[in-house]
């Protein structure tokens, strides 16, 4: 499976709320202490849910 989008994390904006990781339907994101990281890039289906629900403008989903 190949990624449908590239997820950009702006770490200095991320406050570690974990909403993005929790509601990612394909578990692309994981929490690394207080910052989210892309743990499973290939699984991304470009649904954009993480970006839409990030309260901190810390995620950009670049569709491939």
């Amino acid at each position: 499976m190949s990624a449908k989008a590239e997820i950009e994390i702006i770490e200095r904006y991320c406050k570690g709320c974990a909403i993005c990781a929790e509601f990612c339907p394909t578990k692309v994101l994981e929490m690394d202490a207080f910052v989210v990281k892309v743990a499973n890039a290939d699984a991304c289906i470009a649904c954009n849910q993480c970006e839409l629900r990030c309260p901190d403008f810390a995620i950009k989903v670049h569709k491939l």
Partner: protein
Amino acid sequence: MAYDYEKSIRPGKLPHIWCPGCGHGIVMKGLIRAMDTCGLEKNNTALVSGIGCASRLPGYMDFCTLHTAHGRAAAFATGVKMSKPEMTVICCGGDGDGTAIGGNHFIHACRRNIDMTYVLLNNHIYGMTGGQFSPCTPTDAKASTTPYGNPDPTFDISKLAIGAGATFVARTTAFHATQIDKLIAEGIKHKGMSVIEVVDDCPTTYGRRNKFRSVVDMMKVLKETAVPVAAAAKMSAEQLEGKILTGVLYKEDKPEYCEQYKKIIDRVQGA
């Protein structure tokens, strides 16, 4: 390309002041997309707020922004709109700001059906002052001023807006991000007073006191309690107990206040 929020945000203003997991940022993003959809011009759009966490929203936005006094957003906005009806006027603020100290202004803006969009972020608490109960805090819930549980009944903001005369009323939650911008955009396009209630979470001052283990728990509750109006129509009263109706709750076309006043000017000047 990812959606470009920064084009609507003043340079250097991020990160914002809201706590980790506070849904206000999700609502702000929805508002930005909605304003974009409607093609609003920065110089011709006023964003007006009161006081509180949600009322800090306009400060980030690269438009004509007015951060007023506690509860007064709708009244200031009425002056802006009445004086310059060609401007698009959007209010935003919280539940305490809009329905307690600002309740009178809120209902009368609805009654006049003045062409404004009020995005009311309902997180059931006074967050900025540290978690005192608001008119929207659920009965029995804990707040810093209801240590034994909240004895007060609550306001249903959307019902209040409909009862007061708003002609477009919609509700969604911070979880339902794609619905936020759609409803706000519909509200902006609607001629008259539109109220979009976004049921929101305050993990810091509400969640912790009320046994939510995490931000995610609060978001799950928003996800699970929301019922679209169409689905609700097929559900029984028992099934709807504790649910939040989402979507467009009310819409009608009625004369708009500034247009009505313009008719008076035309009549007086023509006479």
